[in-house]
């Protein structure tokens, strides 16, 4: 496979790099320490068109392909993984299902504000007892005649309480298992819908995760997203798209930590020479670079297949597995090579080390990725 960046992709990478280094890098440490959501930089990204990149212009998107969008998430995550996941969740888990399964009215109503970044989107599937086993949904949506009545709660929701528009999964028919799940669009401020506990996370602390609570929350009948009973499919296909973004986030963390380590090794001297002159360390850097570039090829290939309309579920799973595990390996070595300085918060690799872990867990754990991949081997 040959790969070259298009002119468009070169410019997107350059623009996001400049933005991230100028606007985000100086505040990343503070956002992390205080678990503060970066409203200002997210609004700026919206104005620049980053909150709606891979969607058609007629709904207010920028009209790029998926691969170019993925490169933007990667560049952001090199500097700050929280910004990476904020852009990713909004695009893949809220805008994408509305664009793909929404009626024309729903698309006209929600997409322009979402894609321009005026409003933020989130996605609610996970519940205390429904993680990887997503079919164990307890949240219900009852037919209330002219409305749906939602009851239950969701946990670990990225952007919970901050987002304006939520794609929420709930059981419309408990007797049918997976096929009894439907998806709905719920707006912030709807009576009966509130934010519960805000989680105190290990990493990606500027991306807020919170509990969502529904108590007799009545939403209009027309807010059913897709057909009744098709919510599980909506959720699974959204996560399929989302995996590419999480892979990009992991890859960005890996590349960011790697770049930091290269600079550190050039200036840090021990025993009279800089660290890059120690062959054992330099060889490990060669391994890191090779694994990062290999993971990148898997990711770009999966995106390229998606852009060409080819089935890419397995390739997306491989990309996420490879990128997140590469990131785990790279941040570990990055902290190690920084020595004591890697363990304190003055250097970004300490944050990257914590930020990385979630990429092996959310939007499908590494184990789920292996289920998908092995399932395709032993059909």
């Amino acid at each position: 496979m040959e790969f070259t960046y298009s002119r468009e992709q070169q410019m997107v990478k350059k623009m996001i790099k400049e933005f991230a280094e100028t606007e985000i890098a100086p505040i990343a440490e503070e956002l992390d320490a205080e678990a503060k959501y970066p409203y200002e930089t997210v609004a700026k990204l919206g104005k620049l068109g980053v909150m709606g990149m891979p969607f058609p212009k007629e709904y207010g998107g920028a009209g790029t392909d998926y691969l170019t969008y993925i490169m933007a998430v990667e560049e952001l995550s090199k500097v700050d993984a929280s910004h990476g996941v904020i852009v990713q969740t909004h695009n893949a888990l809220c805008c994408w299902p509305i664009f793909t399964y929404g009626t024309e009215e729903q698309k006209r109503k929600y997409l322009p504000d979402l894609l321009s970044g005026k409003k933020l989107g989130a996605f609610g599937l996970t519940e205390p007892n429904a993680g990887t086993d997503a079919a164990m949904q307890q949240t219900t949506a009852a037919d209330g005649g002219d409305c749906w009545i939602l009851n239950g709660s969701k946990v670990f929701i990225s952007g919970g309480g901050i987002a304006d528009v939520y794609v929420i999964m709930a059981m419309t028919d408990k007797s049918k298992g997976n096929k009894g799940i439907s998806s709905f669009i719920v707006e912030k401020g709807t009576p009966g819908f509130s934010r519960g506990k805000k989680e105190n996370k290990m990493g990606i602390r500027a991306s807020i995760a919170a509990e969502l609570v529904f108590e007799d929350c009545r939403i209009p009948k027309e807010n059913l997203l897709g057909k009744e009973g098709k919510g599980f499919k909506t959720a699974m296909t959204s996560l399929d798209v989302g995996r590419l973004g999480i892979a990009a986030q992991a890859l960005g963390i890996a590349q960011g930590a790697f770049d930091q380590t290269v600079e550190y090794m050039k200036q840090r001297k021990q025993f009279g020479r800089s660290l890059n002159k120690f062959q054992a360390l330099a060889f490990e850097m060669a391994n890191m670079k090779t694994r990062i570039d290999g993971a990148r090829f898997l990711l770009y290939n999966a995106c390229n297949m998606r852009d060409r309309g080819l089935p890419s579920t397995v390739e997306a799973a491989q990309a996420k597995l490879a990128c997140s595990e590469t990131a785990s390996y790279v941040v570990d070595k990055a902290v190690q090579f920084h020595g004591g300085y890697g363990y304190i918060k003055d250097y970004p690799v300490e944050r990257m080390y914590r930020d990385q872990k979630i990429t092996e867990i959310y939007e499908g754990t590494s184990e789920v990725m292996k289920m998908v991949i092995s399932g395709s081997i032993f059909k």
Partner: protein
Amino acid sequence: MKIIVCVKQVPNTNEIKINPETGTLIRDGVESILNHDDANALEEALKIKDRDPKTEVIVLTMGPPQAREMLEECIAMGADEAVLLSDRALGGSDTWATSNALAAGIRKIGNYDLIFAGRQAIDGDTAQVGPQIAEKLGIPQITYVREFQMEGKRITVQRALEDGYQVLKTTMPCVLTCIKELNTPRYMSIRGILKGAAAEIKVWSAEDIGVNEELVGLKASPTNVYRSFTPKPKGKGVSVKGDTAKELAGNLLAELKEKHII
């Protein structure tokens, strides 16, 4: 309203290194960028366009074919059109010859109301091309613009001086050279990038702009580079320490005596 912004592609001098033996720049692998002051010039033009979307912003540069990449980025920031003057006959031009070519390019574009340029380029640091363009077009110029206001055809600017500033008024058309204090250049936008990548950049030759060959290129340039070199770095300085002024002075004296300076 039509605004022309003169820009230049320059090596990113933050990344550049000098070959200590030959004293020449090592340009290999050094990224080319839009000259910093020129980005301020473009930003000021785009601010006028923000207020009045009918404004047309045209970026103009002279350079090798790869300068089109910078022009695409100017369109990605919001410029409407871009023109590249590129021709072997223009190669090796000094500031006098460059301004002849740019003035000819500007005449060909025609019907302009305002010309913005950066104060100077980070590779040559001459600050001559902008003012020379104004002279050759026979229009007013104000250099070192740090604040800009426009009312109809009347312009009021603050011109930075070393120890203060002047407030100057002029009318259009005119040339204004901009400094970084004027504004903060915007980022490229995603939509702008799609436009820039697909944009058709006009490439004009010396013949296209109708400039006499005696006015452009290396041979026509009155400036000759005799020799370029890197000044030898000074040795490491010494910091004299002491808790009181008396102690400091004593330590300094001791140091000077030791070196037989006094």
